[in-house]
């Protein structure tokens, strides 16, 4: 297998794993604040997840090489999820 592709996949995987480990820090806040909703934690959790999803789309699922339509559809879905999740969180917290 082409070493260049191997290396690229390795780097991608390392980045994805690193972002995952960041969750250990994001997700465990100090005990005093554990049981309070936090917009910062929520937003960063969702955004980090969507970054990972987009990387998976582009690198593992190879949409980087795909026709424009597929690239747009997958990017569009990522955007849609971002809007829906962040939107429902912030609207939900405000309306309460």
């Amino acid at each position, binding site marked *: *297998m*082409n070493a260049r*592709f*191997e290396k690229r*996949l*390795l780097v*991608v*995987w390392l980045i*994805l*794993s690193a972002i*995952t*480990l960041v*969750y*250990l820090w*994001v*997700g*465990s*806040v100090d005990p005093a604040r*554990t*049981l*309070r*909703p*936090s917009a910062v*934690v*929520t937003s960063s*959790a*969702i955004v*980090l*997840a*969507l970054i*990972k*999803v987009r990387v*998976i*789309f582009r*690198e*593992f*699922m*190879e949409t980087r*090489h*795909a*026709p*424009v339509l*597929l690239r747009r*559809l*997958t990017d569009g*879905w990522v955007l*849609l*999820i971002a809007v*829906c*999740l962040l939107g*429902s*969180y912030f*609207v*939900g*917290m405000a*309306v*309460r």
Partner: protein
Amino acid sequence: MTDPVAKEPMAENREKSAEFVPGQPDMWAFVMFEALVFASYFVVYMIFRTRSPELYLQSQARLDLRIGVVETLVLLMSSWSMARCVKASRAGAFRSALTNALFTVLFGVVFLVAKVFEWARVIRMGFGLSTNEFFSHYFFLTGIHFLHLLIGFIVLGVVVYQLWSPGRRSQELIETGATYWHTVDFLWVLIFALLYVVR
């Protein structure tokens, strides 16, 4: 765009030049549709979460973030080996591709075992599907994802079967299977963030 590219000698150069759809476009249609359905489940979860934040926070605290992180890392590794499998097979290195496919199965099994242990732990603590809203969503989302994982093993079985004998090895089927498996991975990435971290 729908041409099966089985045993194409210059397959490696495919990536450098033209655009291509990995695997059957049909599988991509399925992935997008399922992704939309899951999106609706996530939105329902988020909306209900904002309605009773204290309940959700207290229940969520009973989950172990570290288990979730380990599970996510394992699935990411499985996606990595699956991607390597596709590239190896495209380059004609079928032995390497088969090894990577088998590693993918292995990582999938590790995730499965971890999930079952996690469920057992949560259930022993006294929480079930109908305990409260949070745990309903927890068991539902992880459960439906688990079902997709099980289907993923059948898909991986097809991929391994293809790679095993020189008479088969349809690049299109292998890529199609990979597309499905990566979906199992990215859906988990979101489920993990929503259940274990979002506050």
